[in-house]
């Protein structure tokens, strides 16, 4: 439990983002919560690939290195970061159009307007 503290922190971050998605009414805040969740997932991927006492998987840097961190989760995290960036840009564009159409960002208001 104590040794797995980074995983636990990632779980707390994910839970916080999910809570914000459920209880917030503003669409911008929901977008921020989705960003927090994707950051938590990226952090979880990187934390899964950590080796005790490992260094970054680059041979070029100075110093002696024997143990290296697993490189594949880092590469996949790189892909996931770019994809979440594209998703966030599209999400914010949709929110801008929603505000232009309805004049509000409140979720309940939008539902009441019956669009």
């Amino acid at each position: 439990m104590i040794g797995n503290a980074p995983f636990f922190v990632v779980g707390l971050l994910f839970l916080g983002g999910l809570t914000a998605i459920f209880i917030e009414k503003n669409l911008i805040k929901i977008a921020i919560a989705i960003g927090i969740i994707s950051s938590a997932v990226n952090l979880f991927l990187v934390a899964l690939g950590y080796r005790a006492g490992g260094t970054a998987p680059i041979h070029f840097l100075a110093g002696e290195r024997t143990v290296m961190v697993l490189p594949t989760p880092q590469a996949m995290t790189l892909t996931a970061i770019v994809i979440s960036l594209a998703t966030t840009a599209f999400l914010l564009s949709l929110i801008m159009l929603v505000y232009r159409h309805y004049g509000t960002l409140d979720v309940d208001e939008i539902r009441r307007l019956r669009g």
Partner: protein
Amino acid sequence: MNPLSVVVRTGCDLFAWFMVVFGVNVLVHGYMTPGGGFQGGAIIATFTAFLLVAYGGRKLLGWANEKIFDLFEEVGLLAFFFLAFMGFPVTFFYNYLVKPLAAGGVVPPAGTTALMSIAVGLEVSGALSMVILTMYRGIRMFETAPMEEEIGHDR
């Protein structure tokens, strides 16, 4: 967005092109130092964001030619696909240019890894700059839109 004060604009004059040079540095040396195509492209796209923040969007839209960013993106993407397909007699993504590390030469010894890093950096920088410009133009469309009558909610 209105332009900021003269202090910020002078800082932008000093550091904006440095961002491009630093991004190209990260991108070109991606095969041996920390960095690579995505990171370098994102740093280059910081240039557009910096100009947008410091000088305001109206001036930026006057300066920027979007066809150049489109060209960057399409050239980068096509070069990436071309480099990937060139290794096809063996496999997709076969590294056919790789040499031993001590050989040196014009093409880096990493072969297609370095070239693909440059191509993807071009693509990402063009795409992120286009995203910034397009979203800003969306805001301005939103501001200058005339007060029109209510749009029907029926489908």
